[in-house]
């Protein structure tokens, strides 16, 4: 993870098209400017960045399932719960499942856990839109970086 660059996903572990589920892993860095403010002397990953992490895992799930034809943009966060603190060095397992594929939107349920213990979960909604010009190449490059299945890239 590079928190200050919003690179929240380190590696895609699996993407199952049948169950419409993705699993990714991310390790919280030991140091980040984010921790200088949140909180001084007591570094904790902000809940908003955990939400972003769940959104990115969900986004790559949607991208992978749709074959990178459209871009999912986060439009809603429901039922978000943050169950415990996350500090530097924590290895996160993030899972997301596509709950509903609507016309022009998608809904996922995402969770983060560490060592099997739940950290947070939420229901996320995405607007599915054509890629803004040049963005598809950027997303494909990011997907390659994190090892999203080559067949979808």
């Amino acid at each position, binding site marked *: 993870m590079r928190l200050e660059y919003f690179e929240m996903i380190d590696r895609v572990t699996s993407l199952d098209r049948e169950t419409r589920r993705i699993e990714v892993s991310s390790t919280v860095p030991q140091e980040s400017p984010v921790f200088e403010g949140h909180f001084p002397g007591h570094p904790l990953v902000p809940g908003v960045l955990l939400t972003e992490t769940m959104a990115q895992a969900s986004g790559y799930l949607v991208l992978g399932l749709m074959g990178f034809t459209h871009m999912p943009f986060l439009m809603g966060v429901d039922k978000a719960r943050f169950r415990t603190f996350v500090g530097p060095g924590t290895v996160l397992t993030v899972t997301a499942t596509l709950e*509903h594929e609507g*016309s022009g939107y998608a809904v996922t349920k995402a969770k983060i856990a560490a060592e099997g213990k739940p950290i947070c979960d939420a229901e996320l909604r995405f607007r599915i839109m054509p890629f803004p010009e040049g963005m598809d190449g950027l997303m494909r490059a990011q997907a390659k970086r994190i090892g999203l299945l080559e067949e979808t890239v």
Partner: protein
Amino acid sequence: MSSTFETVAGIISETADIPREQITPESHAIEDLGIDSLAFLDIAFAIDKAFGIKLPLEQWTQEVNEGKAPAEEYFVLKNLVARIDALVAAKQA
């Protein structure tokens, strides 16, 4: 009024925080009720779930944008309800 309309009106009222009594079959979702495109996606999700269908919003939007159909065709609630009933019937057929 049909049970479909009652369900849709309840969804709109709850999702968009609009008093139920303001919602009639003649209401235009956008012009009369002030529902924006984002809120309409939330409503579409609730309708999809409630009726087990997939509202073809992208197709409708394209038809309206291309002038092939007036927005009233899809966004006046009595017309929306008729389309939901048709989608449910097609699914059951």
